[in-house]
């Protein structure tokens, strides 16, 4: 049971180990299946998929149109789909409108394009406050929007997951898709940040 590595006081670890051993005995879930699921999500390919979608939309107007019309279908064109991606709606940022995504009830999130949500996305504070005072929450997260920019908050549900299509950064006219994708951050696709400038993308902060 080396997967757990818990001290004697860790109730949650013990509980999880107990449940896993019962499920294995009942023939419902084998450890290798759990390993496979965890590997898939721990590798953290999520935001990279979303970045490819955004970069394609920035360079291909017809693709962008399809993406805004039917997100799930257009995302599947790039080979991305699966659990929590059954109905993805893409909302576009403009100079007049900024979109931000939340799940007020739990933590719904478009796994196929963004991976698993960061811990702040799941926190009670973000989930309750971003609806009430989005401008203040975004400012606290480092995104100061001009007062004239309208903020739209999208609450995810079991039916719909949202992905923000951020604005293409200035000065990226000559860049190709791969270079553009490197500018797209996870936070910009949730709507709590902006894409990086190309110079920042070349020297990314190792912690971001």
């Amino acid at each position, binding site marked *: 049971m080396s997967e757990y590595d818990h001290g004697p006081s860790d109730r949650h670890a013990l*509980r999880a180990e107990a449940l896993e*051993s019962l499920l294995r005995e009942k023939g419902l879930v084998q450890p290798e299946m759990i390993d496979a699921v965890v590997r898939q999500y721990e590798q953290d390919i999520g935001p*990279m998929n979303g970045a490819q979608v955004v970069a394609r939309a920035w360079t291909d107007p017809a693709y962008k149109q399809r993406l805004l019309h039917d997100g799930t279908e257009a995302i599947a064109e790039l080979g991305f789909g699966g659990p929590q991606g059954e109905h993805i709606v893409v909302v576009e940022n403009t100079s007049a409108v900024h979109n931000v995504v939340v799940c007020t009830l739990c933590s719904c999130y478009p796994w196929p394009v963004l991976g698993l949500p960061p811990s702040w996305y*799941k926190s009670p504070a973000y989930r*309750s406050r971003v609806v009430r005072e989005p401008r203040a929450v975004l400012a606290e997260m480092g995104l100061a929007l001009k007062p004239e920019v309208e903020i739209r908050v999208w609450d995810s549900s079991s039916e719909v997951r949202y992905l923000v299509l951020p604005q293409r950064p200035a000065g990226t006219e000559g860049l190709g898709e791969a270079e553009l994708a490197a500018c797209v951050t996870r936070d910009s696709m949730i709507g709590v940040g902006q894409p990086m400038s190309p110079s920042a993308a*070349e*020297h*990314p902060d190792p912690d971001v």
Partner: protein
Amino acid sequence: MSERKVSFEVGGPLAPPRKNGELVFAAPWESRTFGMTVALHQQGVFEWDEFRDCLIAEIARWEREHGSGCPEAEWSYYARWQAALETLLARKGVCGTTELEVRENDLAARPPGHDHIRR
């Protein structure tokens, strides 16, 4: 389906953002619990929406009991997830609470260093 694929460098300046800026799971039990849930759903043991409803109810219950002024440090998302999974499996008759507690006590009674002996 488009045939156009973008190829990426894995490292280097053009590498797309791979990291979420944090560990996806803070402890092994969190990733095991997440993995069990997805695997059970893939096996057809429950619909994802059934789990989601349990998770929503569990989070709401916690927030009701702890109020909005509760320090973030006391909040554990995967603890709520774990409770939701246990509730759902009990309701489905897959694994009862008593059965789980018995196994938990058995595991807790193992001598120290059991991991190394049993491996």
